[in-house]
């Protein structure tokens, strides 16, 4: 309990300090500080959303900020979009739900179809390279004296495949970044 009081005091002190400082700030500095606060609210909300906070509860939280809602939503979407993993389209679903809700269906569909395109391009590249890479691995293993029906070459980690995948990832990541920028401009 005593510790809690200290925390409360400390938070209060910090608030008072900030208020005192505000008096000596220029309007630009005040705006910067306000933006930083709104950004931290957007970040916190995005983290809570990713942990399972329902979108309606995000709306309730946003309701507390009235005229600053739009700015917070921009930060929220920006952080959520940064959490999109090109290699994990299933994991991106929840993020797309939020984008759909706050930025509208076209933005979410754009990202969704890019992720599907990436997945399909990766699968195609895998099919194209798989046989060649497996044959090369079989040759390498045979040279090392390792063979038999129990073996399945593991080629996902082969330098050639890692390079091919990284190239694909980098190409699609650039396109994703473009869409993310358009979210920030909302």
């Amino acid at each position, binding site marked *: 309990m005593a510790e809690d009081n200290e925390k409360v005091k400390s938070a209060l002190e910090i608030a008072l300090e900030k208020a005192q400082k505000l008096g000596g700030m220029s309007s630009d500095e005040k705006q910067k500080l306000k933006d930083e606060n709104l950004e931290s609210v957007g970040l916190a909300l995005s983290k809570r959303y990713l942990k399972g906070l329902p979108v309606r509860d995000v709306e309730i939280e946003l309701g507390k900020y009235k005229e600053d809602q739009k700015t917070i939503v921009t930060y929220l979407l920006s952080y959520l979009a940064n959490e999109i993993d090109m290699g994990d389209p299933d994991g991106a679903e929840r993020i797309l739900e939020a984008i759909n809700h706050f930025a509208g269906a076209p933005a979410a569909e754009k990202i969704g179809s890019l992720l599907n395109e990436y997945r399909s391009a990766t699968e195609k590249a895998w099919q194209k390279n798989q046989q060649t890479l497996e044959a090369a*691995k079989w040759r390498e*293993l045979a040279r*090392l*004296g*390792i*063979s*038999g*029906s*129990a*073996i*399945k*070459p*593991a080629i996902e*980690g082969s330098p050639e495949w890692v390079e091919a995948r990284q190239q694909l990832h980098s190409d699609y990541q650039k396109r994703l970044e473009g869409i993310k920028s358009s979210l920030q401009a909302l």
Partner: protein
Amino acid sequence: MKLVGDFYAYLWPGVTMQEMMRYGNNCNSYLVANALPKSKHILVDPGQVVNETRQKCLDRLISEMKKDGLKIEDVGLIINTHAHPDHYGASEEIRKMSGAQVAIGKEENEFLKLASGEMSQALKSMGFEMPEIHPDLYLSEGELRLGKDLVAQIILIPGHSDGHIGIYWPKEKIFMGGDLVFDGSTGRVDIPGGSAEALKASIERIAKLDIEYLLTGHQYSSPGIIKGKEQIKHNFEIIRREIFPYL
């Protein structure tokens, strides 16, 4: 320690309770010397680099191998019976020292993917830190030919983990079973991927093999190697009678 022919055993101390307390957890490692071209060795279950009691497990393995005139740099293939860190943990470190190929069960690799993703928190809470591993080859049921004339059967023995493999050397009548059975007990089945029913079925399958040396994954207050057909048969009987009802 030389076991028989080119087979060596490096047992992690733990036969007595005092040893278990002092040395903490790590697996037994087994080695087949000069099995591959250029006198390269096969190492089964390298164990950890450092364990929970800060024991330098890998340093100890290297030093024990040296006593037998074997160098870690000459390991050409690492076979991991399953994807638990106390068995596979040092794989990548040894690869750096030797350039060895790293093998693990195909299904076990699926567990590794989950372990680095959605299952990571659950595993951490059970004390599992999962070191990196990048297999060069997967192993599943079938024949493994090594060098000119060495043949092993890879047998899928799920139960302790889903993609657990055993390595049976029919000519030498040696079975390396990881955490399937120990002297008087079995591997645990409460870790994600474990299954009591699968473990029982795997044990019954292995009990039918002609085995002279049963090499287990740990010395949990009991010897790590069970020698002799009759002793091995007796061990399976004890497990059926004393352990199966509680699994």
